[in-house]
């Protein structure tokens, strides 16, 4: 990987403008759990209490983007305030991240690509289920579609390339694998991930009090359920 230092950028954290109302704070350049916790701490530090003029704080793998109102605060003053907050963020002791458990019916119509994923990795479909459900996955960020989690932590034994031809419609709730990533489709959408299962829970429901089941900074766990349990939960039963 190319180091950003070759491009004569100063050391991290890096404060840069994005247009006339964004301040991008870059904390590092590699995707790992240390970065996950650094972003969590930085987000906590920047939002307790909220920085003056900031309207949204958006985490990325190694970044935080602060959106602000240029009528309320100048870029220079905001960058200085954010820098001061960050200087103490490293020493913060945060409670461990909340774990959100997602029930998943693996295989069959719910996960039509599970056999491919198994064959590709020299495993049985049951082993795919066991390995996938045994993982703990940090939620680095949400995006692509509303509530779609970018998860880390997929065991190398399940890495599988994307489909050669993406599907035109993947049902919401589908759990898939793409290379070293696993994720959950939050709305019906086209997609090329290898589908191994589906959750009956709505990852994104705009009518729910909290529309998002999973927040950035959470951990996700998967729990294997039967097709019968899937239908029971889909009808409103408790997971």
């Amino acid at each position, binding site marked *: 990987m190319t180091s950003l230092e070759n491009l004569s950028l100063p050391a991290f954290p890096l404060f840069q403008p994005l*247009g*006339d*109302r964004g301040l991008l704070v870059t904390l590092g350049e590699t995707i790992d759990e240390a970065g996950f916790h650094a972003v969590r701490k930085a987000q906590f530090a920047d939002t307790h209490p909220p920085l003056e003029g900031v309207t949204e704080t958006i985490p*990325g793998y190694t970044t935080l*983007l602060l*959106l602000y109102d*240029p009528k309320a605060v100048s870029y220079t003053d905001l960058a200085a305030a954010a820098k001061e907050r960050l200087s103490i963020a490293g020493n913060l002791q945060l409670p461990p991240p909340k774990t959100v458990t997602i029930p998943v019916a693996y295989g069959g119509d719910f996960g039509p690509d599970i056999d491919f994923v198994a064959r590709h990795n020299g495993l049985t479909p049951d082993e795919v289920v066991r390995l996938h459900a045994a993982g703990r996955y940090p939620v680095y960020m949400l995006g692509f579609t509303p509530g779609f989690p970018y998860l880390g932590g997929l065991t190398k034994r399940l890495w599988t390339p994307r489909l050669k031809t993406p599907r035109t419609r993947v049902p919401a709730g589908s759990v898939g694998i793409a290379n070293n990533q696993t994720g959950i489709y939050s709305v019906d959408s086209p997609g090329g991930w290898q589908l191994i299962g589906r959750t009956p829970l709505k990852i994104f429901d705009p009518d729910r009090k909290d529309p998002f089941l999973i927040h950035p900074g959470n951990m996700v766990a998967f729990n294997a359920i039967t097709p019968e349990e899937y239908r029971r939960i889909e009808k409103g039963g408790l997971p």
Partner: protein
Amino acid sequence: MSDAVKVLFPGAFTTLQDPGRYGYQAFGVPISGCLDLYAHVAANALVGNPENAATLEMTVLGPKLEFLRDCRTAMAGGDLRAFLNGAPLSPWRSVAVGKGDLLSFKGVKTGCRAYLAVNGGFDVPPVMGSRSTYTRGGIGGLDGRPLKAGDILRKGEGTAVRDLALPESFIPAYPREITCRVVAGPQASFFENLETFYSAAYEVTAKADRMGYRLKGPALAFKPSAPQSIVSEAVVPGAIQVPADGQPIILMGEQTVGGYAKIGGVITPDLWRIAQLRPGDKIHFTPINVETAQAAYREAMKRLYDLQRALA
């Protein structure tokens, strides 16, 4: 609240929009909203609405609408050549319409997008604080989709307002070649030929929609030491992404995450002008520092305020 408008023909891409859905970008929900805030606010002000009332954003080929009750309406933005009961209807002024009146459009003359307001605002249930349509997420507006024939649009109770026309000095021109002010982006140092970016003309391609405008022009070259993509991070409207082919893409209102290098960010008021460009139109970029960008932002917001005051 009552039925106000029946959609006889939906037009090329007509959606309900307001200033946008804020506060959920960390959850992957983009701002959406009207792409040309200036025209949206003007249309609302002409019928006595606050700026957060929902308008119809009409694109290039407007819809055919039948009014179902007496109300007041106004259009602002690009000139899509409107006709009321067969007679030309000028934008930038309000007009009283009655039951059975027909509004139709003959195709774009200037700009790309026009905003239609009715007094009281189009009424749909707000989703997460906004009436904006976000079609890819299927939320907001009318069931999260563009209008289709047969739709009935309801409106809120507006106050009766007099005939209003926007003073000439507030009516923008929509030239087909514009210059946009850009703040250098986080990855500007990845590029070898920044001077090309800031001197050449870039043409709007057919791939230009509410998500982004893909441009065509002299390719931007990555330095040999620079990666051709980055670890995905949050983006904002106006961010100019450059994929490996070196052709810039200006993000508009419907994307929250990006993995391409950002050479710069178009300032907010110039993004409203980009929203009025259509394929074949040209953009020049000019660099400004962030302090100047913020002054321009504040000035544009003051102008919106002055516009509303002029019609109050």
